[in-house]
């Protein structure tokens, strides 16, 4: 290998990772600032600024042709920009809603923002990776930061449980992933995803499929697919709510993006389809059935996020480019819905334990008392069910339509029946918000006098923006779909003209 041109090549590739550089550098600056002044009030602004700057940069990359950078380690171009915008947007939202919430919990440390920034760097790497090495490095960078964020409330038993459980199970799942990567590398002799598919001109060895299976298990943990979902409710409940929102969206988005890249580029055929279909079935069933009986909103949303992972696996099971781009579109819609929902919960928190003990009933009457937050929450819930004219409906369309065209109609019917079931627990939130008052609920569920803080206008605006965005995604979505399809169309074109 000739390394003489390596440095110049890498120098030229630097713009491709502009977001990672900006966000990573901001993380280092935040740590320095925290060292000089505890809880420097400028830190959240700096973080938001870094996210905003990176988003601006990525927005200009949306139309560019797909390419790779750093010796084909990372993917760049329109697809990468889409995933990065999603992750960075989640980071920006989290930064906007976190300060008032963390201040109430007395946890508004600068380190939180540094971790947020570093986790984002890992996510970007994971979501745009083109080799199994960058998949692993990105995943670990992300996960280590998330373990700490989950255990942020270290004096609270729920916080300890959250952090510890996430760490132990996460480390365990990484083992599966690593073993899978080893098997895939061992059988193909390459780490580059696009080269793997062509590595077997005469029949795929079983060992390769074993590797793929282990990788799917590893990702199953990260995206909380059943039966690898056990950690999800406890971790989501014990972690600070705004960070839960970030975990449940950005980390899932980047993990799903990486899984899509592996399935699309590395697999020689769609033989994983049935496995993914079964995974989808179990995940939808577990998520929806368990969510029915949750009294705690955060746990309910945790199970709901499991259910939504199941829907996304339906799209992956279709094994077509339409399915993959449908899943990418759904990731966006899902991210907006869930971030918003967790954002509302964070802004209405009052128990001083990150809402760990906060029941659904504690939201009674909030819809009329806080009209903007209430209406936004109603939009998120309707969208999560999949009602038009919100993004959730279009997302479900793009999930289920490719599956029908791939002959998985039975799975689609089951998935839609589970969506109908989900109507029960999402509508319960709306009825508590609008059709009950504090007088209707038990004493223990009532907020203490003045318990609900007046949310900061910036945080409220960020939540309302999510609701508006869902409405926009439900009506004018065709541009976004074009972007998600571009990756696969252009990838095909590239493959055909070597």
């Amino acid at each position, binding site marked *: 290998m000739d390394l003489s041109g390596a440095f110049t090549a890498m120098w030229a590739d630097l713009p491709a990772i502009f977001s990672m550089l900006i966000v990573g550098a901001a993380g280092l600056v935040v740590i320095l600032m925290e060292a000089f002044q505890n809880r420097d009030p400028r830190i959240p602004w700096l973080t938001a600024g870094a996210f905003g700057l990176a988003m601006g940069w990525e927005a200009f990359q949306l139309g560019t042709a797909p390419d790779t950078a750093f010796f084909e380690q990372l993917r760049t171009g329109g697809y990468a920009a889409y995933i990065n915008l999603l992750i960075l947007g989640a980071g920006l939202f989290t930064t906007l809603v976190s300060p008032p919430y963390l201040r109430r919990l007395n946890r508004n440390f600068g380190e939180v923002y540094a971790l947020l920034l570093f986790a984002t760097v890992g996510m970007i790497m994971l979501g745009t990776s083109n080799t199994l090495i960058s998949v692993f490095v990105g995943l670990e960078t992300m996960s280590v930061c998330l373990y700490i964020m989950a255990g942020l409330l270290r004096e609270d038993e729920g916080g300890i449980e959250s952090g510890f459980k996430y760490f132990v199970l996460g480390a365990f799942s990484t083992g599966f992933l690593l073993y899978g990567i080893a098997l895939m590398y061992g059988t193909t002799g390459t780490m580059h995803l*696009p*080269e793997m*598919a*062509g590595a077997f001109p005469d029949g795929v060895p079983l060992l390769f499929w074993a590797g793929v299976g282990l990788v799917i298990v590893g990702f199953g943990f990260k995206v909380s697919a059943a039966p690898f979902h056990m950690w999800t409710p406890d971790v989501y409940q014990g972690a600070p709510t705004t960070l839960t929102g970030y975990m449940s969206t950005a980390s899932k988005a980047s993990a799903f993006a990486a899984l899509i890249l592996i*399935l*699309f*580029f590395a*697999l*020689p*055929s*769609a033989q994983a389809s049935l496995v993914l279909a079964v995974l989808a079935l179990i995940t939808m069933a577990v998520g929806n059935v368990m969510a029915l009986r949750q009294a705690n909103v955060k746990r309910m949303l945790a199970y709901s996020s499991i259910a939504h992972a199941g829907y996304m696996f339906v799209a992956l099971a279709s*094994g*077509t*480019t*339409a399915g993959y781009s449908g899943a990418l579109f759904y990731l966006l819609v899902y991210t907006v819905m869930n971030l918003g929902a967790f954002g509302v919960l964070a802004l209405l928190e009052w128990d001083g334990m990150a809402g760990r003990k906060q029941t659904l009933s504690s939201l009674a009457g909030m819809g*009329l008392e806080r009209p903007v937050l209430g209406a936004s929450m109603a939009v998120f819930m*309707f969208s999560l*069910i*999949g*009602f*038009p*004219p919100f993004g959730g*409906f279009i997302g*479900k*369309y793009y999930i*289920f*339509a*490719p599956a*029908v*065209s*791939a*002959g998985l*109609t*039975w799975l*689609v*019917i089951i998935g*839609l*029946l589970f*969506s*109908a079931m989900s*109507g*029960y627990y999402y*509508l*319960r939130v*709306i*009825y508590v918000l*609008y*059709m009950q008052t504090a007088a209707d609920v038990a004493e223990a569920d009532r907020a203490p006098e003045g318990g609900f803080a007046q949310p900061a206008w910036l945080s409220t605006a960020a939540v309302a923006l999510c609701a508006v965005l869902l409405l926009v995604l439900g*009506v004018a979505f*065709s541009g976004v*779909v*074009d972007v998600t*399809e571009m990756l*696969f*169309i252009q*990838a*095909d074109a590239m*493959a*055909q003209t*070597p």
Partner: protein
Amino acid sequence: MDFAALTSLVIFLPLLGALALLALPSAESIKWTALGTTVLTFVASIGLFMGYDPSVSTADMPQMAHVVGGWFPEGVDVKYFVGIDGLNILLVLLTTLLGPIVVLSSWYYIEHSHKGYYALLLLLQTGVTGVFMAFDLVLFYVFFELTLIPMYFIIGIWGGEDRIYAAIKFVLYTLVGSLLMLAGVLFLGYAAGSAQGIGFTTDWYNLIDYTIPLGTQTWLFFVFALAFAIKVPLFPLHTWLPDAHVQAPTGGSVILAGVLLKMGTYGLLRFCLPFFPNAAQSAAVLIAVLAVIGIIYGALLARVQPDAKKLVAYSSVSHLGFVVLGIFAFTTEAMQGAVIQMINHGISTGALFLLVGMLYERRHTRLMEDYGGLASSVPVLTTFMILSVLASAGLPGLNGFVGEFMILLGSFKSTVLDSPMLIALATSGVILAAVYLLHMVYNTFFGELTHTENAEMTDMTMREFVLMAPLAILMLVMGFYPQPFLNQTQPTTDFLLETIEAKHIAAIEAEQEATASATHSPAGHVEDVESAPAPLFESMPTALRTAAPSSPASSSPTR
């Protein structure tokens, strides 16, 4: 004059009104804006009525069609496509007419959160008119689901004591049906799209041009019919209806009975029959039996209700049984009767709910035993009640008679049902209707005035008179001279029946050809078999599947 935009105006004017309401401060200004919007919408819909010409064929395009593409990306033929034909023109008019009536009826009934209530009411009207005018299946689905959200809030916030149970039950019942239907929509869209070489299509005209293989028709018909049967509601799926009706505020009940239920029967007529003619005819007897059970069972339950509102609710189950019976008789008379009966039921049952609501506003009870002898204290209200009851019971000379008579006549002649016994049983529903309705009138308005507080009850106010008058006039006009209304619908019902017949034969022929070629020369006709959409649970070739994940494998450059 550009009529195309008028259809969209009728749909979206209420939505604009709803948005305008949100900015208004006082309850008075909100009410007047809501009233103004609905009246304006009604006037605009009169324009639709004037512009609609029954002599112009709608076999290729609805009239005053408004098409806007670019909603979905290229390669997916889903578009904003609305228009008017004989099937929906009267239903649209009924919806826009009930709009101002419902606003007026809620004037004092709604005591809190005016802004939310009237905004949701207007949003609901947008949804319902959209459902009736949509000529694209996905667009229809969007409007169909859109009606659920406002209705959920209207029942849940402004309803009676058990409102939350009723609201959630209402939404979940509909949701199960409509989400199953969505699976059917996706499958049908791909099947028709790949057969016609356009990928995915839900254009109504493309779909009725596509003959679905018999095996596929059965399950598709089942999921579509289930969604609509829940909405109608057909026995035994009707249990959500009494709960929703009794708990809803008067305005909500009127919309629910007047137009929301019609979305089910309209869906059966618009989609189930022309899309799946063979399956529909095979299932006709089964559905007709359920409809007749609904007619009689609903009537018997109505008879024993002590609560006047519940009585009217059960009468809806009974009356809509007639509509379903008429739809599945597959004769011109019965189908026209069904369309007319949808309108009639909207008018007379709407009127009954309004009148029961007026009594409730005065005494805050709906139990018939709390009334009695009201005729002497509220003579005007009594007159309207008797008129509405007689119209609902199908007295000749009033509107109810026309529809029921045509349905029963057409069903007797039906070769698909071919069961005079069944129709004879259905006819008993007319008698039972007279029994339970007259029973209610007797107990409430005649006999002795047992409760003293009823003696000083105020009669109808000017507002109440104004909102009842149009309905009463329509009952008389449609009863005495139904011909103009029938003329509006006839060309379309004829077209539908012709389409159903032609497709019915085409599907059977295709099936026979397939079996014949399979037995005689299996090799020669492989292409035919493959080009037909595959049955459920099997892989289906489509245009969208061009870039399967195997493609990069086969062609990626090896380094």
